[in-house]
């Protein structure tokens, strides 16, 4: 430094609140004319946006390979990140800022550069966490706090860190080759900054790199240049994207162990007030969860935290003290309540903002255009719940439906379709619930790795997903969505995948559950224009399999499962009627016959099969009645008759009205019950009869006891019995 230049290395902890405070002091003391920040140089064009105040952290730099969007990297910043604060300092004091790390375009293709794993990785990214754990600290920020207490001039701490890191690098022999290239590049950048005439340079980098950068003079320039030269480089693009505390807490681009962004934010703002700020926040959250928490509680919790900190010989409370104190004061030792708070308190829901003036990722632009076309701008980013009815005969609403389905496919569930099966015949209406969640912004950006347009992203993402997915109930949903999202090219692959999985699946219930949506899809809106032959092929394989597997599956069904079977069979039955395919219908009827007349068989399912057969008139009526009468008289399982009737009569009061013989059978059976048995059955019978409409009930009542006495009962009962039955029916109806 013959010419009197000064280069100061500030080794920081990424997202370290303590680092940030010290860095600001140091920058203040140094008054640099250039700040170098460890960030890829090919993102340099993004710094002006920080200077123009177009961002509210947490935000992240996203860099991607222009030609291969699956290659991408994020560099997140929070308000308490040292790098962010360095940029803020630069803005305030009008200092030049430069990113000086190896271009991401090289890192992407550098061996070992893109994939980051292992213990060593954790060490190089956050040596402080490692050192803190060696010193017996669970929280690196607290270790930092205790470590820097004697910092006077603002530089001492960074000099100490440099020394420590030099020792650590010497002690750990392993060094990533990509790190060597990066460090050579950064040294070179320092040299060129000197050549350009900067006098006081502040270098802000992850502490691990400190020692390697400090030797920029000793290291031979030619050697560094040799290291940098000759690497492949891909073209990159970059932009600012909003980020969330949630994501910072879970994973960060730097891999630093940030535990609780909110706590660190509070620590950065004012370490002395952090505790009370945190506790107030906690009590607000508890109140929002419906628990009575008074300021007195908050004060008590704060006091307890301080005492606990003292007993544990800490200089400042950490996350553990906070949570221990809260669990006793706020939650009466109820750990489950604490768990509910944990997510909210540790990760927080804070989401950053990026101004519209900043260029967006291509997918985002495409989405915005699509939203405009579908006239959904009003609901876009609206966080309240909106119900929406779409009439698919209108072109814009059809577009809206497709867009919502496409977003659903990308797992951005802005809209959730309500009961898509509620009316399989009226296919022109869809009912949606729309609700925007701020996190979707980030999801859109994440989805952009799959493509630059919504359609492209849907394609690539779905293709990737179906090959990973082994749950084929999920795939049924995917195929349904694909059909409704107007993505014809995906129909074939998804159908094939379902067929492959379906062929090995023995779970007939699942098979039944995914089939009806497929059938409806065939009749959906304008799907005739689509090539749905692959779906038909799929159905041709699925339905026979169901018909083979079903009878055996319903012999023994657990009570809680029988409801699922009941719904699935009934839905499938109605869907098959829509298909207009005699061969399939016949097959299905054969299957129902097997179920109806096989013994043993689950009662509800059997009842339902009998009913379908009766209605379709495939079997002699007498045969059906005989079967019912026979089962009503069984004594082995007292509940069997009642459940059988439930399956048979469910929602079908008209059967009792129009089929007098059937009515007689039921009437006779009910009258033959003794009081206790009847009371036992009452809940089930009631459940059955409650599915009748009130006019149906009235007619049945009249038919049995009312004015129209011409109905003959073919049996005689004593009056007392009849009275009971009457009372019973009365209550039921």
């Amino acid at each position: 430094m013959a010419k009197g230049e000064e280069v100061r290395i500030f080794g920081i902890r990424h997202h370290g609140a303590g680092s940030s405070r010290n860095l600001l002091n140091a920058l203040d003391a140094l008054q640099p004319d250039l700040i170098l920040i460890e960030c890829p140089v090919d993102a340099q064009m993004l710094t002006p946006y920080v200077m123009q105040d177009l961002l509210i952290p947490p935000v992240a730099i996203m860099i991607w390979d222009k030609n291969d969007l699956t290659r991408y990297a994020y560099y997140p910043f929070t308000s308490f990140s040292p790098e962010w604060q360095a940029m803020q300092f630069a803005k305030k004091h009008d200092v030049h800022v430069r990113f000086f790390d190896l271009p991401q375009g090289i890192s992407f293709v550098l061996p070992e550069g893109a994939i980051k794993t292992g213990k060593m990785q954790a060490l190089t990214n956050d040596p402080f966490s490692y050192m803190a754990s060696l010193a017996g600290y669970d929280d690196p920020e607290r270790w930092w706090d205790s470590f820097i207490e004697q910092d006077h001039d603002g530089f001492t701490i960074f000099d100490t860190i440099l020394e420590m890191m030099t020792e650590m690098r010497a002690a750990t022999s392993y060094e990533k080759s990509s790190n060597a290239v990066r460090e050579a590049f950064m040294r070179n950048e320092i040299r060129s900054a000197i050549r350009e005439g900067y006098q006081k340079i502040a270098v802000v980098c992850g502490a691990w790199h400190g020692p390697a950068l400090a030797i920029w003079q000793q290291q031979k320039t030619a050697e560094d240049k040799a290291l940098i030269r000759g690497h492949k480089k891909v073209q990159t693009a970059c932009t600012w994207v909003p980020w969330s505390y949630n994501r910072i807490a879970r994973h960060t681009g730097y891999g630093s162990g940030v535990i609780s962004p909110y706590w660190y934010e509070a620590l950065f703002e004012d370490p002395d007030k952090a505790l009370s700020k945190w506790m107030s926040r906690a009590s607000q959250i508890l109140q929002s969860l419906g628990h009575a928490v008074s300021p007195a509680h908050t004060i008590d919790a704060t006091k307890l935290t301080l005492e606990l900190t003292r007993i544990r010989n800490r200089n400042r409370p950490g996350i553990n003290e906070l949570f221990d104190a809260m669990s006793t004061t706020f939650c009466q030792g109820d750990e489950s309540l604490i768990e509910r708070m944990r997510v909210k308190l540790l990760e927080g829901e804070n989401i950053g903002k990026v101004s519209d003036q900043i260029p967006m990722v291509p997918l985002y632009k495409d989405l915005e255009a699509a939203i405009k076309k579908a006239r959904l701008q009003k609901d876009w980013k609206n966080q309240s719940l909106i119900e929406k009815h779409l009439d698919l005969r209108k072109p814009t609403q059809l577009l809206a439906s497709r867009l919502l389905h496409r977003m659903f496919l990308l797992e951005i569930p802005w809209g959730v379709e309500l009961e898509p099966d509620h009316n399989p015949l009226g296919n022109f209406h869809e009912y949606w619930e729309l609700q925007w969640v701020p996190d979707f912004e980030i999801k859109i950006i994440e989805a952009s790795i799959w493509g630059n347009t919504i359609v492209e992203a849907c394609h690539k993402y779905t293709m990737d997903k179906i090959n990973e997915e082994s749950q084929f109930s999920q795939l049924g949903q995917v195929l349904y969505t694909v059909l409704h999202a107007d993505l014809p090219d995906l129909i074939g692959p998804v159908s094939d995948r379902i067929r492959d999985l379906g062929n090995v699946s023995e779970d007939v219930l699942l098979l039944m559950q995914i089939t009806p949506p497929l059938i409806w899809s065939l009749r959906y809106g304008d799907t005739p224009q689509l090539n749905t032959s692959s779906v038909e092929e799929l159905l041709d394989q699925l339905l026979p399999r169901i018909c083979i597997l079903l009878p055996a599956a319903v012999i023994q069904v657990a009570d809680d499962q029988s409801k699922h079977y009941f719904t699935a069979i009934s839905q499938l039955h109605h869907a098959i009627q829509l298909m207009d395919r005699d061969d399939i219908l016949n097959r299905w009827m054969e299957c129902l016959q097997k179920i109806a007349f096989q013994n043993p068989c689950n009662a509800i399912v059997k009842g339902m099969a009998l009913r379908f057969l009766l209605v379709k008139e495939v079997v002699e009526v007498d045969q059906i009645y005989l079967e019912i009468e026979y089962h009503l008289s069984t004594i082995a399982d007292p509940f069997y008759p009642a459940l059988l009737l439930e399956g048979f009569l469910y929602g079908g009061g008209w059967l009792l009205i129009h089929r007098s013989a059937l009515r007689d059978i039921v009437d006779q059976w009910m009258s033959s019950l003794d009081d206790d048995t009847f009371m036992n059955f009452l809940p089930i019978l009631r459940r059955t009869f409650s599915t009748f409409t009130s006019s149906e009930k009235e007619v049945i009542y009249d038919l049995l006891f009312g004015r129209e006495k011409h109905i003959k009962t073919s049996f005689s009962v004593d009056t007392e019995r009849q009275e009971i039955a009457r009372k019973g029916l009365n209550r039921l109806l």
Partner: protein
Amino acid sequence: MEVIRLHAEEQYAEEIKALIKEDKDEKPASWQMSPQQVLTYIMGGKTKKGVTIEPKYFGQRRLVELAIATLLTDRALLLIGVPGTAKSWLSEHLAAAIMGDSSLMIQGTSGTSEDAIRYGWNYAKLLQEGPSQEALVSSPVIRAMNAGKLVRIEELTRIPSDIQDALITVLSEKSLPVPELNMEIRARNGFNVIATANDRDKGVHDLSSALQRRFNIVRLPLPVDLEEELKIVNYRVKELQGFTSAPKKVIKEADIKKLITVFRELRSGQSEEGDIKIKSPTATLSTAEVISAVNSSQTMAHYFGYDDANKPIAESIVSAVVKDATKDQMILQEYLETVMKSRKGWSSLYKSCKEVLDGKG
């Protein structure tokens, strides 16, 4: 005169003395040692000069830290947990370490009256002299307030709710009015309450929310694993044998491990390997019951000269588990068949249990 059981501060007088002597840290008002030393006393370790401190509590350190810290704040401490989680044990030792006196204690029962918590009258004096301070009979609470000490209330939730609420003034105002004498008793520095309560048993009265607010609640869990429970059992069994005349024949640790495993499995409803579901019997089967089961099997082995340890262990398992004759018996039988029978090295215990159980049926 020999007493059966010594107070904690008597039994561990040496340890307490050593801890006080070496205490360098700041002591809170009227505490006899600093919070750090209290922690050492409870969790065990060595003092700087090498005096061994036996561990008194084997659970998580953070819970004890929390308990001690609470006693330094305005709030009182409530230790809560199922029976046998060392609540009373911890409360006694806390009082012994902090105040050197664990004797100020109220045992909560359904018959505990307000007099026991506040004050009563010496009626002879009351009739003779009229209401006076001399005629007042102080409860342990008042004595603790006057002396600035800790008072322990055992089984707080057994006390009827309206009587529990007599504590509210004491805890919030730190004073107790005596309207008859037109005066109030005010607590000195250092006064606080340690209460224990269990939330499993029948016949408990929940705390009113007003009272609950005045307590910091620390929930003491059952021992996390076999090793922790074994430590507790070994320690307590050894200690109990100090009180009663010690049986010479000691049951081997491997057998004690088996016994604990049986209790743990029945308690948690699954086998230690986690692969078999087990029904839980009506009895709580806490660590305290394990301890008494170990004790009784040792005594039996000693006095009745069993050569085979399995027999007395089987006896104590059956007597501890089978509380409800038909239901528990079936549960135990199921356990024997599904879990114990197929386990390696357990066949003789299985046989003994079967014998005892069949003998019962």
